[in-house]
Every structure is written in C-alpha cells, then in structure tokens.
C-alpha cells in the first residue's frame, strides 16, 4: 500500500469531533450463512462523529458486519440499535434506519439508466417526497463538493471509476444521512483514482460525519480514523487508536496482518 503517496499531508490527523452520544450499538450480534458462523458475538458501540476504519483478511466478515447495520443482511441473534431505533423485523424501523444511514459500495452500484443528477435526486424525491427543484439544487451542491458538477447530465457508463465512486458518495449524501458506511470504496479503482475518492472522504470526515469504513488504505486510516478495528474469522480481534494499532499491535494475528499489508 502506497501510504506515502496517497494523501498530501497524512501526518496531520483530521480533528476529531466525537460526542458522547452512541449512534450505533451492536450487542452480541451473531450471524450464520446456513451452517457457517460468519459473525461471532460482535460488540461495538460507535459514538456520534466517530470515524472507524475496519480492516482484516478477506472473508473475515467485515462487509457482513457493516451490511447488518442497514439491514442489507439479517442477523440472527443479538441487538443492533441505530440512532436509538432498534433494528427488528419491523419494516418501519428498517426504513427509518436506512434513511439515516448512507452506504457506498465497492462496485459503485450507480443506476445505469439514470443520469448522474437523476441518480442523486431519486431517493430525496421518492423517499423524502422532496420537490424536484429542491432535490436538484441539493444534488448540485453535493456534486460540487465531490468536484464533478460538470458531469451532472452524463450517464454513469460515461464516467471513470473514480468519478463514479464520487457520484455514489454524493448520491448517498443527498439523503442527508447522519452515518455513512463505506465498503472498500477504493478497491475497484485504478491507483490514480484512489486518491481523488479518498480526498472526498477526508473532506467528509472534516464535516464531523460518523463514518464506518472498511478499507485497506492504511494511510487513510492513520489520517482520519479515531479507531481502527481488526477483524478475523468473524470476530473483532483488536481495536485501538490508529497510533497504537500501527505502532504497537497487541495480538500476534494483527502483527502478522500488518506485516503482510505493509510489506508491499
């Protein structure tokens, strides 16, 4: 991982804005795919404004864990509470949580049949019943923030990967979420596009957004994270501040993982 080149000034940690309020709480969450125990007794509390980076080897359950937070995956045991709403089987609760939680995917998942602007205005119009003109105004503001307002009329298929991912971020932000989930947002990108997406994410961190980011971009973790979580085989093995995590990992498993990932 090219820690040194990704971010211009990675030594300066983005100022933290953590409040006492717990916005996400996972209590003894367990999940199985058939017989396969993919999440094992996960306990995690995330405070408002906190920025968490989640890393771990492939198949360790990182995606599964954050996808449980907006119910793209269903957990079988334990409680998940988001913004005070208990995630049950109640559709109303799930919808309320999804309105508050934005998600950015590895494969962007933009809607190919809609223009960039329409991608951004769709949910505000159809979920929040916002008038079209207002939705477009907000969408243009966010497209400006991710630095691609000039692409508003194009279709996703006409954009580069980095541009598409920035549109995806803007699209999520248009719903004014209080929490953002990122599942390996830069893994499908060419190296020169990674930094343009990470820049946007750093900018977002500076606004005090609560963020859960699954990523292997350790430079980003050092610069932005308030806490780094290391997962393996469905468990949270270790969690710590980025300083401690990188310079002084406690478990052998973490050391091995770090030595592999930093060896590049």
């Amino acid at each position: 991982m090219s820690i040194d080149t990704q971010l211009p000034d990675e030594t300066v940690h983005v100022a933290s804005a953590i409040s006492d309020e717990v916005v996400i709480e996972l209590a003894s969450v367990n999940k199985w795919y058939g017989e396969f125990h993919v999440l094992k007794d996960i306990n995690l509390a995330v405070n408002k404004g906190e920025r968490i980076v989640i890393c771990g080897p492939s198949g360790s359950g990182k995606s599964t864990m954050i996808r449980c937070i907006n119910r793209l995956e269903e957990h079988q045991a334990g409680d998940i509470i988001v913004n005070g709403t208990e995630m049950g089987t109640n559709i109303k609760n799930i919808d309320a949580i999804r309105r508050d939680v934005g998600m950015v995917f590895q494969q962007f998942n933009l809607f190919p049949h809609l223009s960039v602007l329409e991608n951004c205005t769709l949910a505000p119009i159809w979920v929040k019943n916002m008038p079209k003109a207002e939705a477009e105004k907000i969408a243009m503001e966010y497209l400006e923030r991710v630095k691609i307002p000039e692409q508003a009329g194009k279709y996703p298929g006409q954009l580069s990967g980095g541009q598409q991912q920035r549109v995806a971020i803007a699209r999520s932000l248009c719903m004014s979420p209080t929490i953002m989930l990122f599942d390996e947002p830069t893994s499908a990108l060419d190296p020169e596009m990674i930094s343009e997406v990470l820049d946007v994410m750093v900018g977002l961190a500076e606004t005090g957004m609560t963020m859960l980011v699954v990523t292997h971009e350790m430079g980003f973790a050092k610069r932005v994270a308030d806490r780094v979580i290391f997962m393996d085989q469905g468990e949270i093995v270790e969690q710590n501040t980025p300083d401690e995590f990188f310079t002084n990992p406690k478990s052998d498993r973490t050391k091995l993982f770090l030595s592999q990932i930093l060896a590049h």
Partner: protein
Amino acid sequence: MTDATQSDTAFRPKPSLPPPANTVGVVGWMRKNLFGGPVDTVLTLLGVYLLYVILDFVVDYGIVNAIWTADSYRECLDINKGEGACWAGIGVWFNSMMYGRYPDEEQWRINFGGIVLLLWLIPFWLPKVSGKIQVGISAVLTFPFLAASLFIGGDIGIFLHAMTAIALTLFVSVWLNVATCYLMGKSLPAVLISVTGFADKDDRLHKYVLLGAFGVGFVLALLYHLSWDLVEVPTTIWGGLFLTLVISGIGISSALPSGILLALGRRSKMPVIRVFCTAFIELFRSVPLITILFMAVTMMPLFLPVEFNPPKLAMVIVAVCIFAAAYMAETVRGGLQAVNKGQYEAAQAMGLNFWKMMALIVMPQALKLMIPNIVGSFMGLMKDTTLVSIIGLYDILLMGKAAGQNPTWLGFHTEPLLFTATIFFVLCFAMSKYSQHLERTIGGGYGRR
C-alpha cells in the same frame, strides 16, 4: 530543398493507385459474392432460376391472370380457369373480413374508436411532450372502457358511463398537454397551476387545483357522454380483423402488467404467493391455448351460476389474457435475473421500498433487456388469436373461410387466406421493426455506452 541529392533521400510517398477494376464496384462485388468458385456459380444460377420461377408464377397468378371485377366465384373461374387470383372476391368480402357482421351503418364506431386510440398514442412519439408515461398508462387503463361503451352501445350502465367519461377527460387532457407543451413550452399541470395564480403555494394546493380541474372535465365529459345514444351491437356478431385486434389488443396490453406481477410473485419471499404464482405460471404455460379456450367457453359456464352468463367473447378474452400473462411472466423473470444484485442493494440502502425499487430501478433495466423477447411474445399472441376461430368466433381467419362457403362464392378459399396472411405479415413486421428501433434508441441508450 532544390538540391537534387537531398530530394533523392527525402521520403516521398508513392502515389495511391486505384484498386484493380475487377475487385470493386458492381462487377467486383458479384465476382466476390456470387461467382467466387464453381460451387458458388452453380448455386447462384440455381437461385436465379428459382427466383425466376417463383416471380413468374406470382406475376401470372396475382396480376396477369387475376380478375378484378366479378359477381361470383363461378364468373372468375369461367374467365381464367382458376389460373389467376380472383381479387374481385376480396373486394366483395373486404367489409366482412374487417368488421364481421357488425352492421354497416354502425361501423363508423369502430373506425372512430381506432382513430381515438391512434390519436391517444401519437403524443408518445412527439419529442417535446412531457409526461409520456402518464400518456401510456392513461391509454392502457381507460381506453378499453371507452372502446367498450362505443363498440357495444345500448344501455351500458352507470359504471361504464363514468369510466368512459374519465377516459374522455384524460384523452382531451393528453392533447391539451400536447398543445401547452408546443405552444407555451410548459406541461398542462404547470399551466393550470400558473393560471390559477397558486404557483408559489405548496404542493398540496397544487394537487387540489389539478384534482378540481379534472373534476370539472369529468362532469362535462359525463354530461356529454350521457347524451350519446348508440344502438346495441352484441358481441356475438363482432368479427373480422376488428375482433382479432380486440382480442389481441387486450391480451397484449394486459400481458405486461400481469406478467410483471406474476414474475414478482414467483420471486416473492412469501410462500403462499410464491407457490400460487409458480403454479399458475407452470399450469397455463404447459397447456395449449386451444385447450384453455375450450375450457373457457364450454366448461366455465357449468361452474358459474346460470343468471351470470357472460358472453363467449368475454370468456375468450379472459382465457387469452391468462395465457399471455403466464408466458410474459417467464420472460419478465428472465429480465429480472439479468439485473445486477448491486442495483437492488443500492436501492434498498437508499431507503426505497420494494415497489419503488422495482418500478424505478429494477424494471426499467430489466424491461430494456427484454424488448426483443417481449415483442416476440406479442407477435406470437397476435397470431395465436386466430385459434378463436376453432371455437366459432368469426375472427378474420374464420370470416375468410366463411367466404368460401357462401353459395355464390363456393370454393373461394385461397385468396382470403393470402389476404389474411398479408395483413398478419404487415402487422407483425411493423411490430418487429418497431422493436428494433426501440432497442437502438432506449436499448442502445444509457448515453451511448
């Protein structure tokens, strides 16, 4: 540059020469494609000979020896000994093959209905018109009622009166919308709202304004429509191309919505719905249409109470719709499966509920992929409606056959069949061409990706 030695070493491109004469132009093309070798040459000559034989026959039969005016089939045979077509008969039977036994003086109602439908759909192809989806939905949902009250006539009951009035109101609104879009550059709702001066008020008020305008239109249309006084024409004497188009038109326009619902049902997580939809689809897909038709007209009345005795045509239409829906469901399911899982997840993550996700994200992408298959089913359905002739509905095919059984036209069989075939070819070929056009424009679309 004028130095001789320098110009010797400088690069000078060779002049471009024309290609050898026998590789380009008509001669070149023929050499390459028709006479490339001995086998090619033999096949080409054989093909030319076959073409000559066929064309010769067609011209002789259809034009040279054809009879254009005659009063009976006998008369035709006397003149050309059966070596040419008797197009005179088509002229005589044309009206029957178009309208069946629908009374001559009432046939304007069919033409009028057809023209209204065409006019209703034209805004679909006008580039500047907004709200195309609403145009389509309004036509599909309400035109059948207008058509029913127009084609059947008589005492149609208050429900049909009301639905027809809604249809008329929507039809007029569609064209008012066209007018405002072209003359003022604004949609009809926008114009209505700005006329009332509530433009800067909130959305709720806008809805009331539009509802009010629609209500006024509805009342006017209802009053106007109550003054209609049409003779009843029972469905039993409907026939010809008209009947074919009624059955296939209803079948086609109901197939897509009901097919979508069945396909969604089959993928549903709720077991009762899933099992019901799967059973429905598999049952009706595995049974020939003709069996369903027979069951509809012979067995259904046995199960229904005596006083509830729907006309045969209604039964047939229900049967065709069920059959078409079952087929369409599988086509739609194929399209749904082709849409990436990530699209569903992104839609869910944004908080769209199931129906909005399907309508806004999944279906538009799935339908785009399915255009060729959908149009294929439509063409199949249109041709399959000729099966209703077997259970005694006088569609265009049976009407043509009836012509040959008429005492004056005994034996007049070939020409009506040719005529029917031509009509089906024109209709289906038009559909096929239009689907190719759709594929190129919206299908190739997504901003020329």
